[in-house]
């Protein structure tokens, strides 16, 4: 990826930086099923790292492996340079916030938070201070004496977070931290969680199936599928430069045009589609002539063209469907070559003035650097 002059390197771009968490060829097998399949991953200090995937992709198992609640079938796990593969959960410098919160029902909020501190034999005075600090941090001072069954979902989430933060772990694991909250509360809490993470400087590793959530909060995202990591990158890296058809399709919407490489012209390649249409895309990868590839273009990078002449990246189509979302409208087009194409246009004017209608013939186009060429 391009490095911007003057901007300091992020930890994962710096080859001399030592990863805080290292997974080395970690596999977790249940009988014939590979829940986690040969995963290698480096996570750096201070990151907000998200494991993104649909349910059953192995992301929760990976988190439990880090917590020590599962043992890998093979591979090593290092935290802060120490091999913790065989270290039981109660000796790892890691805390976890569970999806179901797992608050102790027989203890008050205060005692839930104090539990971890009592295990490390913190003096009573310090313990009290830490509890106050945590209650304060999450704005739940008034819940101090309550029991878990007297709390709402959002309150439980805060208490669970306070409990997992109380020991000031270097690494916090969060399993679907916002999963059980309603949409409004979720959006507020997302930002709060990010602020908290920056304030405390703790490395967060979260698991989520919600791509929007992962995009908003993370420094980097690992997209997981069937126990394997398919791509690790920043949110924009994942979105703008997916490395495969799977990742491109999993995160956001995408238009894929299958074709073969015809010719390279400087840093661009000419691609011929199955129907004889042409695409001209920027690509820095070495691509052999004749290689089957896919041109991937996001719907918002497609625009209406006023030039009607045939050219690469220009397609004639008919409006099939319009979805009005307020801020934007999504148009479903059917091209002459039979492609279904999505185009997102910002509603800069009231929709009533919009000229595009059902059944209308349009010409659309995109720039050579508006998408990527995928080989996988």
């Amino acid at each position, binding site marked *: 990826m391009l490095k911007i002059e003057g901007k300091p390197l992020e930890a994962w771009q710096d080859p001399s930086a030592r990863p805080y968490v290292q997974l080395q060829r970690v596999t977790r097998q249940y009988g014939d099923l590979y829940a986690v399949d040969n995963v290698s991953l480096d996570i750096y200090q201070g990151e907000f790292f998200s494991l993104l995937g649909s349910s059953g992709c192995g992301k929760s198992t990976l988190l439990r492996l880090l917590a020590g*609640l599962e043992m890998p079938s093979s591979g090593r796990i290092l935290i802060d340079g120490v091999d913790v593969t065989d270290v039981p959960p*109660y000796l790892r410098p890691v805390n*976890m916030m*569970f999806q179901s919160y*797992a608050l*102790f029902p*027989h203890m008050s909020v205060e005692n839930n938070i104090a539990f971890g501190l009592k295990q*490390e034999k913190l003096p009573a005075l310090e313990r009290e201070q830490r509890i106050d600090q945590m209650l304060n941090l999450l704005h739940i001072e008034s819940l101090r004496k309550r029991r878990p069954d007297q709390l709402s979902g959002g309150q439980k989430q805060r208490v669970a977070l306070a409990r*997992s933060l109380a*020991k000031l772990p270097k690494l916090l694991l969060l399993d679907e931290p916002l999963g059980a909250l309603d949409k409004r509360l979720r959006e507020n809490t997302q930002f709060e969680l990010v602020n908290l993470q920056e304030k405390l400087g703790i490395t967060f590793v979260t698991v989520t199936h919600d791509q929007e959530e992962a995009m908003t909060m993370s420094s980097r995202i690992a997209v997981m599928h069937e126990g394997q990591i398919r791509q690790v990158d920043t949110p924009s890296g994942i979105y703008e430069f997916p490395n495969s058809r799977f990742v491109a399709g999993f995160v956001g919407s995408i238009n894929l045009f299958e074709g073969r490489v015809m010719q390279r012209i400087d840093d661009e390649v000419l691609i011929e589609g199955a129907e004889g249409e042409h695409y001209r895309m920027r690509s820095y990868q070495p691509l052999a002539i004749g290689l089957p590839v896919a041109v991937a273009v996001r719907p918002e990078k497609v625009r209406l063209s006023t030039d009607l002449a045939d050219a690469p990246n220009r397609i004639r189509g008919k409006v099939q469907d319009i979805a009005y979302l307020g801020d934007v409208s999504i148009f479903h087009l059917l091209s002459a070559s039979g492609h279904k194409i999505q185009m997102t246009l910002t509603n800069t004017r009231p929709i009533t003035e919009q000229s595009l209608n059902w059944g209308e013939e349009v010409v659309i186009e995109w720039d050579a650097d508006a998408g990527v060429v995928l080989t996988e």
Partner: protein
Amino acid sequence: MKWRNLIMGLVAFGYAFLYIPVMLLVIYSFNESRLVTVWGGFSFKWYGEVLKNESLLNAAWLSLRIATVNATFAVALGTLAAYSLNRYRRFRGRGGFELLLAAPLVMPDVIIGLSLLLLFVSLEQLIGWPPGRGFTTISIAHITFSLAYAAVVIRGRIGQLDPLLEEAAMDLGAKPFTVFLRITLPLLAPALISAWLLAFTLSLDDLVIASFVSGPGSTTLPMWIYSSVRLGVKPEVNALATLMLLFVVIIVLFSGRIFNRKR
């Protein structure tokens, strides 16, 4: 409407069948007359007799001690058995262990009593322990069968326990034994109390097994009552039964209050 009346009638009959004898027993415990079946006026006389009867008081005291020891051991061992059966899904001889644990539930008392008697007698001949038969042998006998009941009650509750709570505790730095002590045990408390009360009652109630494994001079309450009734029901037995009933009611109300406060 007709059906409803019929059902209500049946229910009333059922309850009457269960509780009228008990009520009669309580009423006749206040009978002045020496004849159990003839009402001779209201009196506390037989309660006085109960409290003066030393052999009866000794038997009651022995039974209470045995019941307490029995319930405590049965709950402790039953918890361990239930916990290991629930948490360790696969170990050598699990099936056999489970079967043998449940066997006393269906084993006739006569067989348990007789086999334990044989065991105690031969043990005494071989290693000199237990010396004679009495408190120790009855307690051991009671623990062997109460254990099965306690394990059943506790297993039901452990099955409902969220294993994530234990994982969360471990994640917060608690070693397995601390997790058991601070998380598992308190959450099991209601079941432990129920199991304790059940084992206590089973022991207090047992006549057959105790008869086999008791020796001279160690008469439990049920044995005392049985032998005195054989010579005809005395009014003081009614008074004694009423006292026991009162005792049980108090315990039940008390444990009910504990549960409600927990919730």
